[in-house]
């Protein structure tokens, strides 16, 4: 039986990051992953990530996955795919199923980074074909190129629900509504705004009453709930759908730790049962570590840093680096991780009633309830004086750790500062050159270029556009408001693509001047010619 320095279970962001760190220190590392492709959830993530440059901000998830895999392979890490770790036994032994046989391997140390699985919520009709997890829908679309359905209702307004809803729209599906029993949208406001401006309505404080259909999903009835989540009679709304996507949270897949005898903690804040670990991922069994969602549901950026930490600790445990080196590495990584765990959506701030941003501006409750900023919100967050010529308008109103917009502008028009959770501010002393790099760089698609001096009657709005087929120059359509309502006529002046924009097209449309503060999306008009 082969014995490795380090066995890593799971080739997702945490697992690969751990492998890279350990390989850098000279360990012989093998990574087992049950999937056909490595990268874990990264390969399904077609949107741009948040955070800072160090956190791979503005890079699309699957590209991060490619980068990690390349780096790991280059460092000599053995990544074995289609290799399912079926059990973890005494003496740090694992059984791996490969093809039609099993193999026994032992590790001097083992890092388990097996991620999480989707939660379920039962409702009448949930066993009908057509009820699927949002993650499953994402796999179908982004890995296999299959539309999960035609008319879809999304249950759950956390980041998964919001991001997948947008991807469903990109795939050409019709998202009829996003429903959540909570009173507020759980995910980032900018993710919600992306779908709201496409006309998807949000129903907060609502839940699914029943799903019905002959042999598959055909109809869904939702109803309002009160503060104790009890259905309020006579508030039913019916939608014709063929698919219900369920995005109600994730649970760590921590079974391997449990069977090996690690102390476990059933912690709702972490999403479920996790191994008891210290802050570096060491479990109660010496030499067994946890990293990523399996140690507590968070996100890919934090998973990568946790993976690095576990990789460093495994290296020190096995004598491949000194305690001093380990301490230095961990200190930097901890700082890095901490910078991600700030802001409005940080775990430490969950449950707290947040009423203003760090800067003291009252937050938008409309964004939390309906998914878009109201006109009053815009006024509150924007500078009052008119800016001449083309200039960026940033509709980013929640403190989250993110700053690619600041780095994107060569003219330094956009300022965030050292604390990356600060809201970006447009420096009116600098002159915007209208290059649009900030529009493309913003992972939340919350930056627009507005030029109210285009002509006496018209303004130009440049917006990020990620739908195919791209509109053509000269195309006439409609501009919509932030809530997706049709506002006015709009003509496409240009559609710019560039490698630097990384598949975010910049669509510039001409709208009546009076609409310049409201027009934020372009809707194609069906032509019957």
């Amino acid at each position: 039986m082969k014995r490795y320095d380090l066995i890593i279970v799971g080739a997702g962001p945490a697992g690969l990051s751990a492998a890279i760190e350990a390989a850098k220190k000279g360990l012989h590392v093998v990574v087992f992953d049950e999937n056909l492709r490595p990268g874990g959830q990264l390969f399904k993530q077609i949107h741009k990530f948040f955070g800072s440059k160090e956190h791979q901000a503005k890079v699309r998830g699957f590209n991060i996955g490619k980068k990690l895999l390349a780096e790991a392979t280059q460092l000599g890490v053995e990544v074995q795919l289609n290799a399912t770790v079926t059990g973890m036994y005494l003496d740090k032994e694992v059984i791996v199923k490969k093809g039609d046989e099993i193999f026994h391997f032992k590790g001097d140390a083992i890092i388990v980074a097996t991620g999480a699985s989707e939660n379920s919520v039962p409702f009448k009709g949930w066993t009908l074909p057509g009820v699927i997890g949002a993650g499953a829908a994402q796999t179908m679309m982004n890995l296999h190129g299959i539309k999960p359905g035609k008319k879809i209702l999304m249950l759950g307004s956390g980041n998964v629900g919001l991001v997948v809803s947008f991807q469903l729209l990109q795939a050409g599906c019709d998202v009829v509504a996003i429903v959540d029993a909570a009173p507020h949208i759980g995910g980032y406001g900018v993710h919600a705004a992306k779908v709201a401006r496409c006309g998807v309505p949000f129903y907060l404080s609502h839940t699914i009453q029943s799903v019905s259909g002959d042999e598959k999903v055909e109809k869904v009835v939702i109803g309002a709930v009160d503060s104790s989540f009890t259905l309020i009679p006579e508030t039913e709304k019916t939608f014709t759908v063929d698919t219900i996507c369920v995005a109600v949270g994730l649970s760590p897949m921590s079974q391997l730790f449990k069977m090996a005898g690690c102390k476990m903690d059933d912690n709702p804040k972490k999403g479920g049962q996790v191994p008891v670990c210290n802050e570096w991922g060491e479990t109660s069994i010496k030499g067994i570590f946890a990293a990523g969602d399996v140690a507590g549901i968070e996100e890919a950026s934090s998973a990568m840093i946790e993976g690095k930490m576990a990789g460093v600790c495994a290296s020190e445990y096995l004598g491949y680096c000194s305690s001093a080196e380990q301490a230095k590495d961990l200190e930097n990584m901890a700082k890095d991780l901490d910078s991600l765990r700030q802001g409005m959506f940080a775990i430490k701030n969950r449950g707290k009633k947040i009423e203003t941003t760090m800067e003291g501006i009252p937050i938008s409750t409309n964004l939390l309830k309906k998914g878009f900023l109201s006109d009053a919100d815009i006024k509150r967050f924007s500078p009052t004086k008119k800016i001449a010529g083309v200039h960026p308008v940033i509709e980013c109103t929640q403190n989250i750790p993110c700053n690619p917009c600041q780095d994107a502008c060569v003219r330094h028009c956009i300022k965030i500062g050292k604390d990356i959770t600060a809201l970006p501010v447009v420096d009116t002393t600098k002159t915007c050159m209208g290059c649009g790099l900030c529009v493309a760089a913003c992972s939340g698609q919350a930056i627009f270029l507005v030029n109210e001096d285009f002509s006496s009657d018209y303004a130009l709005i440049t917006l990020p556009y990620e739908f195919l087929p791209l509109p053509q120059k000269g195309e006439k359509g409609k501009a919509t408001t932030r809530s997706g309502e049709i506002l006015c006529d709009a003509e496409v002046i240009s559609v710019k693509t560039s490698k630097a924009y990384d598949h975010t097209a910049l669509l510039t449309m001409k709208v009546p001047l009076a609409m310049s503060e409201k027009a934020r999306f372009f809707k194609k008009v069906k032509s019957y010619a």
Partner: protein
Amino acid sequence: MKETKPDVIVIGGGIVGNSSAYYLAKRGLSVLVLEGSDFIGNGGSSRNGGGVRQSGRDPRELPLVMWGIQNIWPTLNSELGVDVEYYQKGNLRLGKTAQHLKILQNLTDKAVACGLDVRMIDRDEVRKINPYLSDEVIGASWCPTDGHANPLTTTLGYYKAARALGVHFITGEKVVELKKVKGKIHQVITENTTYTADCVLLAAGYESRAIAKTIGINIPVRKLKIECLVTEIQPRMFEQMLGTAEADFYGHQSKHGSFVFGGSTGLEPYETDNGTPISSSIGAPCICRGIMKYFPALSRAKIVRTWAGWVDECADKVAIIDKIDEVPGLFVSCGFSGHGFGIGPAAGYNMAELIATGESPVDLTPLRYNRFKAKI
């Protein structure tokens, strides 16, 4: 803690403890059952292969198990109000070599002498009974009145029925000491508090040994690991209970359709765990190979779960079911050595009768606790 003193304290919430408690309650006695783990039936009762058999047993326990199959098992569903999934479709103990057949003949002869309906059958007859056997099987012992049942629902069924009769169950109450007061059993001391009763039944599987030690009684059992596995649901194939001449694997197809098998690697006396019984990394693969040698048809069946348990193997491999004279009021029912499920209900009934009336329907003399003698 209960204010009133129960008539009997039963230590151990497995098949033996629960069935004893049930039949005691039916006799009108008040019973308190103390289970050390957090779950009723968490020991061997939930980990075995489900055999309800007479064949292949030591003659000393044959009368008891035969009595159970005649008097208890057939009506257990209606007795408990639970589906114990009892199938009385026979037991095949398979042999592949001449040596195997010799072992089986030996067991068969001993059983026939006790009046059991068991006989040897040849390769053709065994295939008539079970057409799925591999070509390697050359014969078997066949006992038509043997069978299998669901150990989980049976154990929990006795718990449910006993509880409905007023038996008081407490889990998470680990007994650490037994004490006499003025020469008779009186105190049952747990990690938490002290209970008192004039009659105590120790039915705690392997844990009985440590508890009995505290009152000067030696229960000569050692721990042996068994490992089990279960498949996903399969098309209905056969209904007999299966075993082999060397008892290296055994199992059945459950009512649900899944196959449950138990087996061993041969390294059992040297196995350890991590605090709870844990499958070894070589157990399940070994059992699979064993099964496939007898049933190639199951080679594509998917295993969904493996588990392990500790057998409390007694020095002479049969149970101790007895009144302990030197500790008046103490009764012991443990050491079932890996074949306690099928005989459990009968043991429970007979122990209840012994406690309540002083006599049991089946003579339990061969299972006395002071039977262990040196070899010379």
